[in-house]
């Protein structure tokens, strides 16, 4: 069982293929089937983690699975090492919770929504686990198409425009990736990432630079850093609740994993440093961070504000990863976990609270929301404070390590910048928290806030709140017990930087 980690990709794939048939037969068992499949995937992920635990501690985990029983020279290979196992576990746990949330939240067109959701899960797992660069391209394109369809799930005008823009950027990014793959193949003669690594030093200097710039551009387009960030605010804010959490929290982290794998395990990072590109990445990351936080400050629409905040944090993660020190990678990976948990919680709670404002995103309509559902609003407050960086929430510890990494590498001004931006984010989150408790204003507005949520249909409200509470608990656990996962992350960081 422990070598069959291909089942991590196969289970969601087969589920997505079987769902239309189940819908033709009997629609009532659909929810049970989805839940069964999601729990199966979660169980499989946990079993694989536990059965390889000793290997993880000694940082010797490297299991290769050759598809079709061809050697990795001739065919495609999947690899399970520390980096891919880490992201795979993150994916499995967070996607399970989002599927549970969607079961309660999504009311229309459910059949196709779950098909696309499971295809997205399979594609993300495939992108994280593969060791072949063309296979990575196919999975990235699958991620792009399914996430575009999920963005346009709300059938209104803004979603259509947002998904068109997102797909256009995504296709162009994929095209640059494609050119890079073929430049690599025609000069090294192989498509396996391990074999490319061993041949990479010997090729022409011009081609080395060109390939790195092509892949860097492609990843920056997909992650949404400056100057390709124009799709980000619209796409993340016009999609429905769970889809926004999925895109903003989980999808961007998969591309961070691809960034790590490409630039540390295929091209050795020292080459980047020699050519000055590493400095460029740090500046682009920090500049995106500045843009993200400042533009979030001026936003009235809550979901757009959260999307710009994502831009800010992802820019920070990319900048600190580009430092190429063990503490830099530790800070980046830690912030990956904490940002995933906190941003998902934020988007899920906002998705729920928007039921009360009848879908309006404006600040003025949030009056008195806190009194409608105290528990969910407390989760919102905790997640928001975590994003700012207040102990004992996980955001504080990860920001601490990031600032520490910047100071250790001599970028004191960057550390100061990050603390300043954290202060700015405090302001724009505080606005919403204060508004929520604004009971006096609530009685004077003309449009009344709804008394009960739309979701109080039998079990749906409870399922949604359950998912939110589990996320909040995970977030608090991650904050209070951060030393549990600090050591494994340090092992991964040391492994990557060699």
């Amino acid at each position, binding site marked *: 069982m422990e070598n069959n980690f291909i089942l991590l990709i196969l289970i969601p794939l087969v589920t997505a293929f079987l769902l239309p048939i189940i819908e033709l037969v009997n629609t009532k068992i659909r929810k049970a089937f989805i839940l069964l499949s999601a729990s199966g995937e979660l169980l499989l992920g946990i079993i694989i983690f536990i059965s390889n635990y000793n290997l993880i501690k000694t940082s010797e985990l490297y299991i290769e699975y050759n598809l079709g029983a061809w050697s990795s020279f001739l065919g495609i290979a999947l690899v399970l090492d520390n980096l891919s196992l880490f992201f795979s576990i993150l994916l499995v746990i967070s996607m399970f919770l989002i599927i549970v949330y969607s079961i309660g939240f999504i009311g229309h067109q459910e059949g196709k929504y779950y098909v696309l959701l499971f295809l997205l899960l399979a594609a993300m797992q495939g992108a994280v686990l593969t060791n072949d660069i*063309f296979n990575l391209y*196919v999975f990235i*394109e699958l991620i*792009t*198409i399914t996430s*575009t*369809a999920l963005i*346009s799930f709300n*059938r*209104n*005008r*803004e979603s*259509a*425009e*947002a*998904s*068109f*823009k997102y*797909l*256009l950027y995504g*296709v*162009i990014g*994929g*095209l640059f990736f*494609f*050119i890079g*793959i*073929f430049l690599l*193949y*025609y000069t090294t003669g192989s498509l396996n990432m391990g074999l490319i690594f061993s041949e990479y030093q010997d090729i022409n200097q011009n081609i080395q630079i060109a390939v790195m710039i092509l892949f860097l551009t492609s990843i920056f387009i997909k992650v949404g850093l400056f100057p390709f960030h124009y799709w980000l605010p*619209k796409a993340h804010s016009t999609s429905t609740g769970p889809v926004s959490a999925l895109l903003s929290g989980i999808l961007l982290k998969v591309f961070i994993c691809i960034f790590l794998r490409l630039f540390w395990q295929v091209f050795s990072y020292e080459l980047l440093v020699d050519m000055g590109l590493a400095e460029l990445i740090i500046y682009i990351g920090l500049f995106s961070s500045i843009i993200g936080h400042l533009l979030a400050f001026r936003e009235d629409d809550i979901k757009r504000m959260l999307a710009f905040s994502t831009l800010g944090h992802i820019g920070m993660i990319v900048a600190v990863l580009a430092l190429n020190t063990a503490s830099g990678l530790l800070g980046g990976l830690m912030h990956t976990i904490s940002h995933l948990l906190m941003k998902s919680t934020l988007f899920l709670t906002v998705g729920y609270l928007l039921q009360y404002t009848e879908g309006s995103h404006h600040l003025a309509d949030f009056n008195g929301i806190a009194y409608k559902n105290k528990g969910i609003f407390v989760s919102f407050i905790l997640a928001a404070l975590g994003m700012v960086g207040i102990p004992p929430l996980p955001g504080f510890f990860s920001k601490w390590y990031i600032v520490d990494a910047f100071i250790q590498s001599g970028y004191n001004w960057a550390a100061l910048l990050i603390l300043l931006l954290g202060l700015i984010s405090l302001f724009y989150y505080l606005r919403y928290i204060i508004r929520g408790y604004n009971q006096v204003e609530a009685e004077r507005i003309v449009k009344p806030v709804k008394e009960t949520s739309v979701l109080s249909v039998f079990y749906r409200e409870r399922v949604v709140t359950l998912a939110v509470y589990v996320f909040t608990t995970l977030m608090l656990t991650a904050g209070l017990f951060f030393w549990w996962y600090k050591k494994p992350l340090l092992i991964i960081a040391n492994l990557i930087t060699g």
Partner: protein
Amino acid sequence: MIYNIVFILLFLLGLYAILTNRNLVKIIIGVNIMESAVFFWVIAVNSREGVLPILEKGSEIIQVANPLPQALILTGVVIGASTTAFLLTLLIEIDKFANNINLDFLKGLRD
């Protein structure tokens, strides 16, 4: 050498079409031109004297064209066609809501 120039010309033409056009259909056509340029280049780099990679008994290896890029291009073409179909569908959806597919009038795409 000549195919490099053709590839770069077509690729930059497609990129120019994407960056400067106002009409969304022309932008999609520009994406298609870029993709076709890349597929053309990949096959053209490989163009030596070679027979089809369908082997009769006992052909020499030197005379056979490289089958690996051809298989990868097949995958690329299929993915390109799927994304073009999807882009056109989104265009139909935008047209339904806005009655216009010119970027100047679609405020939503400029923000």
